[in-house]
């Protein structure tokens, strides 16, 4: 009986619930509905870390597009330019925002046209070897 409980607990620990790695929770996750013609878009969310240690995001994956990555954005020589981020630190008891006009989850080469209300899944990996999945709803941002 005691052995059983331990096995169940081990099973729970091995499969952490969605959108949770260590103490990180993703909130307000959404994806911009790409205009027709475009096969690129971006996803946005706020990562909240309630834990006592920093969590470092090292990768993001999604079946929605050929290339999915964490992107930074900066003005350089008068041009807006985007660059891949190898890792993003979510500080202990802090938040990090992926937001319009700033750091974002880049989707390049969408496998299918998106539609409003659809949910895309993003799997994040952390430097500690954990992973968690964030569902994000496609939103039409017009007017």
């Amino acid at each position, binding site marked *: 009986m005691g052995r059983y409980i331990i096995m169940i607990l081990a099973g729970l620990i091995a499969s952490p619930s969605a959108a949770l790695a260590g103490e990180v929770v993703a909130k307000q996750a959404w994806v911009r509905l*790409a205009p027709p013609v475009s096969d690129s878009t*971006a996803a946005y969310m706020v990562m909240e870390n309630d834990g006592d240690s920093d969590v470092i995001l090292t990768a993001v994956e999604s079946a929605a597009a050929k290339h999915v990555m964490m992107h930074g954005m900066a003005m350089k020589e008068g041009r807006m330019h985007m660059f891949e981020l190898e890792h993003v630190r979510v500080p202990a008891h802090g938040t990090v925002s992926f937001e319009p006009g700033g750091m*974002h989850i880049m989707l390049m080469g969408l496998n299918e046209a998106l539609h409003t209300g659809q949910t895309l899944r993003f799997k994040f990996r952390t430097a500690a070897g954990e992973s968690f999945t964030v569902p994000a709803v496609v939103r039409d941002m017009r007017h």
Partner: protein
Amino acid sequence: MMKKHWKLISAISVMLLFAAGVAGWSVWHHARPEIPGYLKRMGGDFTLMSADGPVSLHDYRGRVVLVYFGYTHCPDVCPMALGVIASAMHALKGSEASHAAGIFVSVDPRRDHPDLLKKYTAFFDPHIVGVTGSNTVLNQVAQNWHVSFSVPKAAADENYTVEHSTFIYLVNAKGQIVELFDEKTSPKLIAQAMRRWLD
């Protein structure tokens, strides 16, 4: 004696407040600010290709125009900017609206053919026209408009990003650039500016 004094002060105060209100209202309503010097040195006419034939800036004389340079595969800033342009145009009513227009110039002609541009801009507002041109023409327009952009050497079917300036240009009824905004400007503020230059 004291009472009289206060009456005078309050009467003057009321008059001053009233005068300030009238002045403020008329400035807000009628002011058409000077075009800053650095904007006078930018811009100029161009002719580029839309799905429905050539489009020139001088076709828009008598209307205020919002002009933006970008590309359709842009994931973030271009959809934001076009959303802002569409909302600003949407905020104008009646004859104001019919005297306003938007032009989206793609600096990525390798992928953005005019018919694709038409579908792209219609998503935001059918009154925004999508245009592009040869690299030679685009480079000339970009130089005149102080637009900086860089398209990587890649095949059209590769996924690549384009670096580009992010100004939303407000062009007055005479074809002059009069104000600059970007994708983070509130549409309300842009609509106010458009009204100012329509008066």
